[in-house]
């Protein structure tokens, strides 16, 4: 069963080449994800703090953090006293 399932992707791999752009995007995403999760490992952070810590532009940090929230790696922390900026934290920290 398992061998049969793997086969269909293998068939397409023979016919279709994955573009360098797609490969590069995945590499970059994994790099950015690692940077963000490492930074969050140090404690809760706002988007601005994460951007400063990782060197990733703020809007991209926002996109990545929201995606990581969506896919269960990150959760929402608390909002500051002015109700302006939320912090974000690693999901596993929440469970501990």
């Amino acid at each position, binding site marked *: *069963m*398992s061998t*049969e*399932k*793997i086969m*269909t*992707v*293998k*068939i*397409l*791999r023979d016919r*279709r080449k*994955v573009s360098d752009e*797609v*490969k590069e*995007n*995945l590499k970059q*995403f*994994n790099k950015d994800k690692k940077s963000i999760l490492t930074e969050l490992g140090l404690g809760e952070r*706002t*988007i*601005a703090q994460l*951007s400063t810590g990782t060197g990733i532009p*703020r*809007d991209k940090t*926002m*996109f*990545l*953090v*929201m*995606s990581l*929230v*969506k*896919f269960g790696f990150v959760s*929402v922390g608390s*909002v500051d006293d002015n*109700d*302006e*900026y*939320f912090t974000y934290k690693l999901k596993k920290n929440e469970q501990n």
Partner: protein
Amino acid sequence: MQKEPTTLSFDALVIGGGIAGGEAALNLASNGYKVIIIEKRLSLGGKMIMLSKVFPTLDCSACITTPKVSEISRHPNITIFTESDLTSVEKRGEHDFVAKVTRRPRYVVAEDCTACQLCEEACPVIVKDQFQYNLVGRKAAYIPFSIASPKVAAIDIENCTLCGACEKVCPPGCIDFTQEPRDYVITAKTAIVATGFKLYDPSNVPRYNYGEAKNVITSMQMERLLAPTRPFHTILRSSDGKVPDKIAYVLCAGSRDDSLGNPICSQICCMYSIKQAQLLMGALPMADITIYYIDIRAYGKGYEEFYEQAAGMGVRFVKGKIGRISEKENGNLTLRYEDLASGKLKEADHDLVVLSVGVKPNSEPAGLFTTHKLELDSLQFVKQSDPLLSPAKTTIEGVFVAGTATGPKDIPDSILSAGSASTEAICYLNQ
């Protein structure tokens, strides 16, 4: 490998699976006619399924659309082709239409998919989620959105790394990378065009700074921010995660302006902006919301009261034409506008600007009909041959039009128009 196209026969061909196409199909099917819906995207529901709430009742849009879409999907007389391209429609004679359709591969066996989302979890790729108007990411193996119909996974092959992770984890083994486009020849006795509208692209107007200034967004992006299935956990600026507290709406962004190629009123922007302003006041009670308008057109039943309700809630209405939106260093925005009450040029600062983008025609259906000409009007909407007495008739006998394909309409009017198109189609079928 498919050698010959598959031939299928129906009473009616409905082009477009939005709310108007769906309603027209449902009416025909409920009267015993066999209907096929051809939908370009992965899900039925069109733009309505993406909305937060509807005006002026503030009913949940998904709560209205989902049961309707589910009824369409389950109807025994309706066949649905999603992710499909209609390439041509030929009229060979009265009650004799032949359409050529290509179904793009989903790389998932739809009948076997349980929408468990394990493929999505396993997929390592993240790309911009077009269903959330690029505000958040989605995987290359993905369910389009939580209330999609059919709720079936799809593989975005353009962004897939062919790692095979989705195929490994799929419990029913329904991922199939060997799928190929399939061609169909569909015969039908009548056709309904329900191809909807396009949203105005504000990046065509440099003075709005859309695409450059990160905190200038479109009303459709705000719809997503307000929806229960929103991309963020609350209303936030996509530039830096700040909760906005001074929000501006710019009405007629891409409407009522001949120089932008869209001289007409889009009919829905005033009301959806007022709706969003009310929802924002509920979500962010401390926020200041200003609507910059030329005229407020509240023409429907309960619309004027809805406008007054917004004003009573504290939404500020400024009669002013926006000249330029410029971005400050902190991401806030300065709106330069002509205050129409005083005739003076003024400036105001906001931390989020929503462009209430207008309705643009979708002229694609005109190119589909090969033997007869489906005429468009001067604005490139589908021309109604008898707009006063038979508004669903087009310039081709036996081809009818529903919804916003003929021009801007709100949801109730789109559904009414679908009723009209299906009735005309039934009359034609009985001739």
